């Protein structure tokens, strides 16, 4: 081949086949790339959710298809004291546990943000309650709260002689409720603490230095620098924490099963008890569906009230 020929040479234009043409066409490519994700969402999220919502309008029983009963399940639940009590306790449980988790979690995060010896080791240990399987920690708490064999009772009564009677942690409604909340707080603190710690470490030290030069007290530094800059991550962590707590099941089911006398039923445990052991799938689904508005509200609250952009960036809310 001489030079002129070489210069004039162009790659032979091969006839592209239909597959290549299809892949070059943007809409087709978009559809192709989205299908797996959409498929997963449809099969594992939309379908179960849709089925649950549909079932809540039927009287389906375990092993038997149901018929459409409209709002009957919900009408009954509104008159059912057990259900109303579960709704009330779910909200109370979520609120109390979230406050506890955030107060202690933030405190822990601030401590861990200091220069401590063995910092990374301590941080790893802090995570332990979070990585322990819930059921295991639930069983541990079940023993701690046992009316006859509680380690707490043993120490207080038999070792220290501060009391003469063992604690009855789970036998009466209010102590049982607070015991469960304490267990939930214990489990939830690491998640909050580590997330907030990550947030704290993104705050530039120069801000603190500048504030110190201006003579700001440590409270002022927290109030004016740490708190506002932590807000975005706080909003996200709060949302997740509220959602987890609201939908909690394992702790309550393993420790009290909703007892004594239904005083510690969460909506999730009641939905399971009615739906599976009680075989009334329709009613169980209705209880589960009744959780959705609360979850949506909690999410909206976190995003709009706490996640307000202006406030986060130090502007005034107005």
């Amino acid at each position, binding site marked *: 081949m001489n030079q002129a020929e070489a210069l004039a040479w162009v790659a032979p234009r091969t006839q592209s086949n239909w597959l290549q043409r299809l892949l070059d066409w943007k809409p087709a490519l978009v559809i192709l790339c989205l299908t797996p994700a959409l498929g997963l969402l449809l099969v594992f999220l939309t379908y179960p959710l849709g089925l649950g919502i549909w079932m809540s309008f039927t009287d389906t*029983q*375990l*092993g*038997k298809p149901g018929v459409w009963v409209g709002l009957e399940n919900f009408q*009954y639940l509104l008159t*059912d*004291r*057990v259900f109303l009590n579960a709704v009330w306790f779910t909200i109370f449980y979520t609120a109390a546990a979230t406050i506890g988790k955030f107060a202690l979690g933030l405190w822990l995060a601030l401590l861990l943000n200091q220069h401590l010896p063995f910092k990374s080791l301590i941080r790893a240990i802090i995570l332990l309650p979070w990585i322990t399987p819930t059921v295991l920690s639930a069983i541990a708490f*079940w023993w701690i*709260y*046992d*009316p*006859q*064999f509680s380690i707490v009772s043993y120490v207080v009564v038999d070792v220290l002689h501060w009391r003469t*009677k*063992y604690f*009855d*942690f*789970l*036998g*009466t*409604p209010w102590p*049982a409720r607070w015991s469960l909340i304490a267990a939930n707080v214990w489990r939830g603190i690491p998640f909050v603490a580590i997330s907030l710690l990550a947030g704290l470490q993104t705050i530039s030290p120069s801000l603190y230095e500048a504030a110190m030069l201006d003579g700001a007290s440590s409270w002022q530094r927290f109030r004016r620098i740490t708190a506002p800059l932590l807000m975005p991550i706080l909003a996200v962590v709060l949302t997740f924490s509220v959602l987890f707590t609201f939908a909690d099941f394992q702790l309550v089911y393993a420790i*009290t*099963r*909703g*007892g*004594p*006398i*239904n005083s510690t039923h969460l909506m999730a445990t009641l939905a399971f*008890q*009615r739906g*599976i*052991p*009680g*075989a*009334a799938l329709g009613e169980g689904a209705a209880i589960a569906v009744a959780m959705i508005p609360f979850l949506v509200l909690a999410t909206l609250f976190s995003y709009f009230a706490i996640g307000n952009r202006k406030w986060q960036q130090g502007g005034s809310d107005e």
Partner: protein
Amino acid sequence: MNIITRRSVLATGTAVAASLALPNFAMSAIPVADVTPPKLPIESGATLRVLRPTKFVAPDEVIFRENIAKFTAQTGVPVRVDFVGWEDLRPQVGVAANTGAGPDIVVAWPDDPHLFSDKLIELSDVAEYLGKKYGGWYSLAERYGKKWGTNNWIAIPMGGSGAPAVYRKSWVKEAGFENFPTDHAGFLKLCQNLKKNGHPSGFSLGNAVGDANGYANWLLWSHGGFLVDENNKVAINSKETIEALKYAKELQSTFIEGTLSWSDASNNKAFFAEEISLTQNGVSVYFAFKTDPNKAAQTADTDHAAMPLGLSKTRPESALILNAMVFKHTKYPNASKEFIRFMMEQEQYEPWLTGCIGYWAQPLKAYAQSAVWTSDPKIAAYRDTCGNEYWNGYKGPISQASGAATADYVNVQMFAAVASGQATPEEAVREAERRAKRFYR
């Protein structure tokens, strides 16, 4: 109820299981009629999957598996058995029934076959054969095995766990009772004295499937109360129930602290630790003592008795029936039926019954002659468990409604509300009536 502390089982259970499961097991002289088994040619290439609740006394699993191995050796049918937690059984059965796939045979809880009756193979041929051969079925076994109101067997009861009173003889004697009381007044007096002497009794009213239902049902039935009448109408709101509630309130003050939060394992633990002198339980509490070499004195001091009859003519107790059922979706119905028949035959059944020292009492009357019941007179109270004349949802049919009312702890919580002082008997019974009407609509 039937739960043994893990420690005690680990310590001694396996040793006992091994010794009881020796091949030279001497079978008792059980009166057996000469009956030809139903002709059930096993399908070629059959394999079986069996699901059953997990064991709480070690031999239950060991001997069950040995019997399965024997079945495979004799028929060439491979069998896979899964033991699942007691609470996990219902969800798994529900999935199998809804999807039409999964285990061929489920050894399930008493109500399960009645929930899924239209998904099950009729087992009348096997049941009638076994009944004829082994002296007939006990009444409770028949109630739970047959579809209500028909003569068709939808399940084969394999055993029943009862819950009579288990008590420490010396402490009951110290409380002034040579013999265990048989009336309400005597029983209350006994519990009061036990408390006074520092050895209180304890009966669960927590959300405990076995123990709490056993105790609450005894309270209700021994006072002549019942959840629904023969026509399936809710009849809990009666003066008998009110009496039972008042009695429960008085009794509660004599118990050890914390029984309102007791789970099924709590009374076992407390009795084993000698914190309580009296409770209601399956044979597992005694089994734990008996298999612990360090507890010989406690074993000798422990005994069983029927709970006081009160106003009832027969023992006001029911039983947790182990109810085997075969799903229609099985490809090997004959093999499944043969499997159940095989497990109920004396060569397999008696070693299992004996190994568990009556943990699952027999549903077939002939097995009452088994040597296990005379080998230890203390377990005699469990012998006729399957002959109890009461069932969950007494006097109505065994149905989805009766199962659901039990699962929602309607009866237990009625008693717990009054015993804890949260409600008056009248309030509690109205609430129970309201809840029960939902299930029996």
